[in-house]
């Protein structure tokens, strides 16, 4: 489903070059639920933005659903984001000017879907996250947990093959976080491939597989001696 080999990402500013990812390898199979963990600044978000075609990478190879994405133009990338990928962000990222229904509709409109089908999908998705009664509410009128559920409905409505979540519970209290996590687990059981970035070990433990990133490289937690040192260092970042 998602395969990166020797991938690197360099951020260049006038003064420094930052290797956000270097020689990064990952292979997520169809239907897997993978948690990506690592200290702050280790490159988790960078990995996710590249995986979700929000950003290009500097070197290496990335196959999404078997397709080499490096040669795709902006329109083709937009189309893949729209049809194959569902995003869930830490800050929910609902559009404040639109109500719940209109928010979930956004990706469907960009797909050029007919109104009747859009409506059906929106209702199904909101039903799925338990917010079908809040259609006319605006994001500001919802709790954080509810907002994240709307965001999940928005990600689900287009029936993506791949769900990418960047610290989806990072802005939620424990109870709401648990609810969102259970929802993701349900969605996974129904067949979706999920890649979730988190620094909460408890949540990570509930995924099928963990990938740990340190300094832009995936490491085997058991084997890599750097892990303990880095982890200690990350606490004061």
């Amino acid at each position: 489903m998602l395969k990166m080999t020797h991938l690197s990402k360099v951020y260049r500013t006038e003064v420094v070059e930052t290797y956000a990812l270097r020689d990064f390898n990952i292979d997520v199979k169809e239907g897997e639920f993978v948690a990506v963990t690592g200290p702050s600044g280790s490159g988790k978000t960078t990995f996710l933005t590249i995986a979700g075609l929000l950003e290009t990478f500097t070197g290496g190879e990335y196959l999404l659903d078997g397709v080499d994405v490096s040669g795709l133009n902006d329109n083709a990338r937009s189309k893949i984001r729209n049809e194959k990928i569902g995003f869930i962000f830490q800050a929910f990222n609902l559009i404040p000017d639109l109500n719940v229904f209109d928010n979930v509709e956004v990706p469907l409109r960009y797909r050029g879907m007919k109104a009747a089908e859009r409506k059906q999908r929106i209702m199904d998705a909101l039903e799925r996250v338990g917010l079908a009664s809040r259609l006319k509410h605006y994001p500001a009128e919802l709790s954080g947990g509810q907002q994240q559920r709307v965001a999940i409905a928005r990600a689900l409505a287009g029936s993506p093959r791949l769900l990418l979540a960047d610290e989806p519970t990072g802005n939620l209290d424990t109870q709401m976080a648990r609810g969102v996590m259970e929802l993701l687990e349900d969605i996974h059981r129904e067949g979706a491939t999920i890649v979730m970035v988190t620094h909460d070990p408890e949540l990570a433990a509930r995924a099928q597989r963990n990938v740990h990133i340190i300094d832009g490289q995936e490491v085997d937690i058991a084997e890599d001696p750097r892990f303990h040192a880095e982890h200690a260092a990350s606490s004061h970042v």
Partner: protein
Amino acid sequence: MQIKPILSALRHHKAGTILIAVQIALTLAIVCNALFIIQQRITMLTRSTGIDEAHLIRLQNQWVGVDDKHVGSLMQTDLDTLRRLPGVADAYATNSTPLSNGGWSTGIGLKPGGKGERVQTAIYFADDHTLDTLGLKLVAGRNFRSSEVVDQMQHDGLDPPQVIVTRAVADKFFPDGDAVGKRVYLGNKPSIIVGVVARLQVPWVGGWAANWEGRSTLVPRRLMASGTNFVIRAKDGQIDKVLHSAPAALLASDRMRVIPDDDGVVTFAQMRQEAYQSDRGMAILMGVICVVLLGITAAGIVGLTSFWVGQRRKQIGVRRALGATRRDILSYFLTENLLIGATGVVLGMLLAVGMNQWLMNTFEMQRLSWPWIVSGVIVLLALGQAAVLAPAIRASRVPPVVATRTV
């Protein structure tokens, strides 16, 4: 395609939306009316007087120390002097000319003593040289004969046995085109129309004569007054020379006269320039107002859209992440502007008509026609789209990665 969500989103930005819509409405109303006024002024400015202005000079002369009764012989001597002058094609004396903004007018009708239907007409004193001097086009009848030209004291009633009228006067009373030989009345005695000229504008260029600016009547009379206007026709290419030689020749023949230094001898080109100075000024002012208003409106749209793009940077990134193409983002802002613009122009059309109604009631203004309003609408909508383009392009360049980065 995305009209409904754009409208819903705009409801959360009421202040800016209303501000721009109202600005567009006001601009449309003012620009429509201003352009209409400009067009009317230009029509006025470019109206023909019916005379051959390019060859004509007006010389204002005041004889000194002479009784009005004895002006006749002086006038004849001066006319002889002028007509003999090299470079002069012809000349005559009159009370007034087109573009002078001062002259005589009276009622003219088919019944004596001011009864029956009458219309206002300008009165030009003329002789048998007038048609040739002015270059008037006789479309029916004949010129005055020299024997018909007689002296007229200023305060005597004006009842010439013959008149030449413009087609505008003739058509008013004789729409069948058979005016020649018919009687009309300026006063109590009948005047026979002996000739009809195609066009001769009244002396007044604006305001009160606007509705009858083509109704002029030539009378075969020499005005016995110490002040007179000589109209001199120069031969091709001689006008500059005659401008100097004519007053010099008159002064040489008799020094007992005053020819004002500043505007005593002027070409009709100069007279036209002066007569329409305020109209030209008005047209330019209106034009400047239009440009300034359109500029301000465009700047307002650029400003507000830029502000909105900055404010919505995050959601633009989110939309991009959710699959919007650059075109989708571009078209979002263009459509949004079009919706605001559409509201503005609908409001503006009503305002434009209202403003025009007020101008019609308050000033002499004609009814604004639909083509003007439609053109204004097109101009403003196009201006809006043009103004929004740069910020919209900037919006379309917001990268999708903005969705994941918190700043």
